[in-house]
């Protein structure tokens, strides 16, 4: 079974530039997550999709970050314009809901390491 795919793996940009990350979840997984992981910290959830709808994006800095999941499969996360503090690894994860009472196991991609200069 193929895992979660992300691209690019690395990206270096200057502040105020724009950048986009792409994620292809595991086939059949309805739920997709984007996390931000700053060096030395654990991942922080930015946005969660259920199929092509946003479940919650309360921790997404909407003045500069946007995300979409067209057709309920692939997803893109965009930052425009980037700031120095956006330097982090951006992880995508997917899961397949089992039941209402079960927190789904999330399967993570390798991440995109973003460096903002």
């Amino acid at each position, binding site marked *: 079974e193929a895992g*979660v795919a992300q691209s690019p793996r690395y990206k270096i940009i200057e502040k105020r530039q724009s950048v986009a990350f792409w994620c292809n979840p595991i086939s059949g997984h309805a739920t997709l997550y984007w996390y931000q992981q700053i060096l*030395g*910290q*654990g*991942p*922080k*959830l930015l946005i*969660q999709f*259920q199929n092509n709808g946003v*479940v*919650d994006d*309360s921790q997404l800095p909407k003045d500069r970050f946007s995300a979409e999941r067209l057709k309920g499969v692939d997803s893109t996360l965009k930052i425009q314009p980037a700031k120095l503090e956006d330097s982090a690894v951006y*992880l995508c*994860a997917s899961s397949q809901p089992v039941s209402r*009472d079960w*927190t789904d*196991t*999330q*399967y*993570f*991609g*390798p*991440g995109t*390491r973003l460096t903002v200069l």
Partner: protein
Amino acid sequence: SQQGEEDPQALSIQEGENATMNCSYKTSINNLQWYRQNSGRGLVHLILIRSNEREKHSGRLRVTLDTSKKSSSLLITASRAADTASYFCATDAVWGGGSEKLVFGKGTKLTVNP
């Protein structure tokens, strides 16, 4: 804000020894999960323990949960060099709209020396 806090922040042991990592959290949970992250790679799910469970095993892993103390421990027995990684605990939290999200701690960086 992060719900779980792992302790210690870093741990260095010799191959064959056991490694114990602890996680403390603040609010009530439904379950707690442990993930491993190898350098430069994504997170891998290791084990999930539900709030009504006290102990769970998976291969060389043993996880305990004490809901009265709001703490969990991960024990890796007979460690191998390949166990070198960062280990994160993650707790579920109910947020806006009733959906659940995972809240990760800062992790314990484990180094197993050959």
